[in-house]
């Protein structure tokens, strides 16, 4: 499986080349180097896929062992990569979407002062992400997990001259630490119980786990996933992450990195299958996240914030799928989401780019005529995410909702309401930005916004096509469920299939379609000619349910108060007291010793005489014995 090494190797090579020579290659050469590295990686991923396709369904798990990494007692970790249907799907869409976003970035980041550095981080990110999805053991996955986290931090605070960008990067990093703690504790529990951290050994042996332990492991890993995949209550970092350049938001905070949590849960499906309570918890948190984020998205005025809340909402859907055991549906949604969400972000970026970095939708409007490609691709993405048939979202979201219905009707109701909201808030975005009256004159100072250069529109078109037709991957008709057939050997018995009656099989998709169209129509009626409706944009939703200010009040201010307490009380008295006390103790003892060092020779002699007395006494006593 050496070609698997190439998939991971090309981004690493690109990273190293850019790190060493990036500055010399400069703009736009560095961008092309990065893009070609990722494109080659995509080609290698396709080759890997074809190689796996040529094998029998049961033998599609291939392992590439490079070398031993850690060996301590009974604890072994090897650098081993795994090519199986799940990781190949991840590889394909990560490299594919990343290649398009790299291409787009060449245009978007043009004339940026640190152009080459952007691609250094981007290539390192793709490398880390590929390590994450192909690693064959938990520590190596964690390495990739932390790698994408670090790249995310660097890229969010890429424009660190802005204080808000710098602090957003820190916020993302710190909140993700909470999740990382769950990841590590989960890994420890797995090793404690199964004496291995390798997927090849852990996953087949998962059934040996006691039920309670399985629940604990599942919840700990879900904590990790909730951090990375921005679930309640840890999603606030993703909104601040929009401070990064828009291609970063598209690649990392929409299409790839945030799906790492979903991937992790899918990878650990044999453990999850044993943990019923944990699965239910995941499903509930997922659907609540989806609903809460969708509500918040309806009131945002920053175009990227809308999309960010939408991402959180979609990730909630994926977690709902994970929680109900619909792993294939979750992965399916992940793939289609990667296409249409990357597209939405890149289209937004195109708009922002042409409006001199303006992000408020209040100062946009009537851009459809001026930027036709951007507008049309955005509309396709909107229809996809809304779930309007026959675009991809209809099939992927539909399969999630079907399984949710099979599990519990209440989950399905919340999911459907969220779907309505999704169609509505994306419709609001499209109508306010591309239709209505132009409100951007102030921003552009006279000149008209124009369509982005071809290097940016080509990725848009490619992604638009993908977003439109990705539903073909897994049509709900027997014989056409390609993704299901491809992935089901990976999940095996963990994959839950619910039996729906024939009428339900017709009614559920019909409901989805009606709800999606309803959302579109409502948005059209409300926002076609308006850019502001106070009644529909309550402050509580604009502020994201005040979750951020709640964290600020409790944890941030609490932490500050604690730090102040430490600074004012603990440090001067206890710490300094201890340090000073030790110094004082030694000075005191030294002071006692100083008295002996009087400098008077006769005192020294007196002490010497004492020594002689003792020595003679010793001779006498030892001789007398």
């Amino acid at each position, binding site marked *: 499986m050496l070609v698997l090494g190439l998939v991971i190797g090309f981004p690493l090579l690109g990273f190293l080349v850019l790190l060493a020579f990036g500055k010399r290659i400069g703009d736009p050469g560095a961008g092309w180097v990065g893009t070609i590295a990722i494109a080659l990686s995509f080609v290698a991923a396709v080759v890997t896929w074809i190689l796996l396709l040529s094998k029998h369904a049961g033998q599609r798990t291939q392992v590439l062992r490079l070398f031993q990494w850690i060996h301590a007692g009974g604890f072994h970790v090897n650098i081993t990569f795994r090519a199986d249907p799940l990781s190949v799907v991840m590889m394909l869409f990560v490299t594919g979407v990343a290649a398009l976003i790299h291409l787009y970035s060449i245009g978007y980041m043009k004339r940026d002062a640190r152009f080459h550095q952007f691609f250094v981080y981007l290539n390192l990110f793709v490398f880390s992400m590929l390590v994450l999805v192909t690693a064959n053991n938990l520590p190596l996955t964690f390495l990739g997990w932390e790698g994408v986290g670090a790249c995310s931090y660097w890229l969010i605070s890429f424009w660190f001259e802005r204080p808000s960008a710098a602090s957003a990067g820190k916020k993302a990093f710190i909140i993700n630490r909470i999740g990382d703690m769950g990841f590590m504790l989960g890994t420890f529990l797995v090793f404690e119980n199964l004496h291995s951290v390798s997927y090849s050994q852990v996953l087949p042996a998962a059934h040996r786990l006691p039920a309670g332990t399985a629940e604990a492991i599942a919840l700990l890993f879900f904590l990790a996933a909730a951090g990375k995949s921005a679930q309640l209550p840890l999603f606030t970092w993703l909104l601040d992450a929009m401070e990064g350049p828009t291609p970063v938001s598209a690649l990392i905070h929409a299409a790839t990195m945030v799906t790492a949590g979903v991937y992790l849960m899918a990878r650990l499906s044999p453990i999850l299958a044993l943990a019923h309570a944990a699965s239910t918890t995941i499903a509930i948190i997922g659907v609540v996240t989806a609903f809460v984020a969708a509500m918040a998205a309806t009131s945002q005025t920053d175009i990227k914030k809308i999309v960010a809340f939408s991402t959180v909402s979609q990730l909630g859907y994926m977690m709902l799928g994970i929680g109900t055991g619909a792993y294939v549906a979750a992965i399916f949604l992940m793939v289609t989401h990667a296409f249409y969400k990357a597209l939405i972000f890149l289209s937004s970026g195109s708009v922002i780019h042409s409006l001199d970095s303006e992000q408020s939708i209040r100062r946009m409007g009537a851009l459809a005529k001026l930027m036709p490609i951007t507008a049309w691709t955005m509309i396709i993405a909107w229809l996809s995410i809304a779930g309007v048939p026959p675009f991809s979202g209809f099939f992927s979201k539909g399969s999630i909702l079907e399984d949710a219905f099979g599990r519990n009707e209440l989950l399905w109701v919340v999911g459907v309401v969220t779907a309505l909201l999704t169609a509505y808030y994306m419709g609001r975005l499209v109508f306010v930005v591309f239709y209505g009256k132009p409100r951007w004159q102030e921003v552009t100072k006279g000149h008209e916004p124009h369509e982005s250069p071809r290097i940016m529109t080509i990725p848009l078109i490619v992604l638009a096509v993908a977003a439109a037709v990705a539903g073909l991957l897994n049509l709900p008709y027997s014989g056409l469920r390609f993704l299901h057939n491809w992935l089901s050997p990976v999940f095996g018995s963990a994959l839950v299939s619910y039996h729906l009656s024939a009428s339900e099989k017709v009614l559920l998709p019909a409901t989805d379609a009606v709800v999606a169209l309803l959302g579109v129509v409502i948005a059209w009626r409300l926002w076609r000619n308006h850019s502001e409706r106070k009644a529909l944009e309550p402050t509580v939703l604009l502020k994201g349910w005040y979750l951020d200010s709640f964290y600020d009040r409790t944890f941030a201010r609490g932490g500050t108060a604690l730090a102040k307490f430490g600074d004012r009380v603990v440090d001067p008295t206890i710490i300094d007291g201890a340090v000073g006390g030790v110094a004082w103790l030694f000075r005191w003892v030294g002071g006692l*010793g*100083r008295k*002996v*060092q*009087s*400098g*008077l*020779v*006769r005192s020294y*002699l*007196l002490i010497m*005489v004492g020594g002689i007395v003792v020595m003679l006494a010793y001779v006498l006593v030892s001789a007398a014995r």
Partner: protein
Amino acid sequence: MSIPGSWYLVVAALLFGLGAFGVLTRRNVIVMFMSVELMLNAVNLTFVTYARMLNDVGGQVAVFFVLVVAAAEVVVGLGIIVAIFRHRATVTVDDISSLKG
């Protein structure tokens, strides 16, 4: 019959005590030095006494070497005293306390 060795040893011990007391109580460096010579002589007397008691010439050889070393010691010691006196104009030990901690 000659006088028993233990008598000499007692005399030597007394002489040693006198010397030690002198070193400990006198303030003049030169007098302290002389007291040290007394102590050396006491030890020499012990050596000679044991040489006789044990019929071993080694004791006398040791005294021989002690005498040589004592001569050298006196030369260097008095040299130091002269140097200190030149430097500080005193031969009183209590005034020479540069090593005070």
